[in-house]
């Protein structure tokens, strides 16, 4: 797609940098974490220099994730507050997925689906961080009763599985909606894209149609 001076700026360079740090560390976490999740995935440890290295690195990746995710949370939380129109959007999501977006309530910078995904990811990350500390055997596990460690292991595995599924949906939605990925790569979207997918945001930033 040719870049147009009239394109709308959706993300600053700092926002994109933050997003991609989170995305890359997520992939490292998911691959190293899955390795301990099911024997089927254990060979993934080879990507990290073997089982012991994967075990050593995974929690440190988690620390980088926690820091960069919190930064992203502070950047975006206020844009993701749910409104009645977002809930109405979510009630019609089936139509949207069937390819008919004519009756969808007008979305602002984010639609109901994106906002819900945002908060679900925040919830998963909170659970992963807290439970991850508890099961970090080298430093912390000895200070917790074994029942707490067992519970944390379950919570960690469950929230990680949910988060991986959510991120697959997130990445797919970006691929499915043409013209979206460039927002995260160069920061801009075409005006047509904005009017189609985020009409209320389009009006806000262009001042058109008020």
């Amino acid at each position, binding site marked *: 797609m040719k870049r147009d001076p009239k394109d709308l700026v959706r993300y600053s360079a700092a926002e994109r940098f933050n997003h991609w740090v989170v995305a890359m560390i997520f992939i490292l976490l998911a691959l190293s974490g899955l390795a301990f999740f099911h024997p089927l995935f254990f060979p993934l440890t080879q990507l990290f220099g073997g089982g012991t290295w994967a075990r050593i690195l995974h929690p440190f990746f988690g620390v980088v994730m926690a820091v960069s995710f919190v930064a992203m949370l502070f950047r975006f939380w206020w844009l993701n507050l749910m409104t009645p129109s977002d809930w109405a959007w979510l009630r019609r999501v089936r139509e949207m997925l069937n390819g008919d977006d004519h009756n969808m309530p007008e979305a602002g910078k984010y639609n109901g689906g994106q906002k819900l995904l945002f908060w679900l990811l925040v919830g998963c990350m909170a659970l992963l961080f807290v439970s991850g500390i508890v099961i970090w055997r080298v430093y912390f596990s000895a200070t917790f009763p074994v029942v707490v460690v067992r519970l944390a292991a379950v919570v960690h595995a*469950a929230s990680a599985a949910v988060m991986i599924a959510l991120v697959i949906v997130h990445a797919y939605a970006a691929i499915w909606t*043409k013209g979206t990925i460039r927002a995260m790569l160069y920061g801009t979207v075409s005006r047509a894209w904005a009017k189609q997918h985020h009409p209320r945001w389009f009006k806000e930033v262009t001042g058109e149609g008020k």
Partner: protein
Amino acid sequence: MALQSLDIQRRSATTTPSPSQRETVEVAKLIDVSKCIGCKACQVACMEWNDTRDAIGVNTGVYDNPTDLTENSWTVMRYAEVETDRGLEWLIRKDGCMHCADPGCLKACPAPGAIVQYSNGIVDFQEENCIGCGYCIAGCPFNVPRLSKKDSKVYKCTLCSDRVAVGLEPACVKTCPTGAIVFGSKEDMIQHAEERIVDLQARGYVNAGLYDPAGVGGTHVMYVLQHADKPGLYSGLPNDPSISPLVSLWKGVSKPLASLAIGLVAIGSFFHYVTKGPNEVSKDIEKEFEKEFEE
């Protein structure tokens, strides 16, 4: 067979069967608490045979020394002074790995072959495959495995699998001066325990019995207890140990199911694209902006 003199029946984090053609006799170590004099010769023998040395500890005013299992002390005597209906009793238990038939450590371990169960029932850690995650510690119903600070590997009693493999009894059994520890086929050990229990009951220990808890499928280290109705008297021996439901949930069917669910989300997304096509900007809006561009 090929690499070891004991056949492996089960390997951690392995979904296919291990070689299991040969028939092996199930073994067990029987610890008769009523015969134990608390001399700690078994502790010393264990360290001698396995070449481990614990750091010099601190006397805490009790006979327990060291006060807990460590990566170097794979067996530890625990001394409990308890009031029973027979008055004050000194109950001494030799603590260490119970070698469960259904081991929680092996269930929890994510590293292939880091924990194995031989066909004779011995549960053995193979530290060269251990990644040091400590999941086995969370999985164990008896609080036995200990993580080494030196190498971040986990250690516990091997039931002297190296000695057993060449037809010897474990070092602790060999050294016990009162015959409180005996070793042999599990069948023989149960029979021997029954004889001891009859004797103890005749001496007034009406609740004497064998500790071979069914919740973990039985163990390959068993106790003869004077008070088998209250194992907790023996420094907190679990009454009815089993793999925690949390560990079963964590390491049970939820793993393949969650893996399948993640796979379905990915495949489902792809087929959504194939069946519904991409979500593109409508032609009307595109034209509207193109017109503007031309102007």
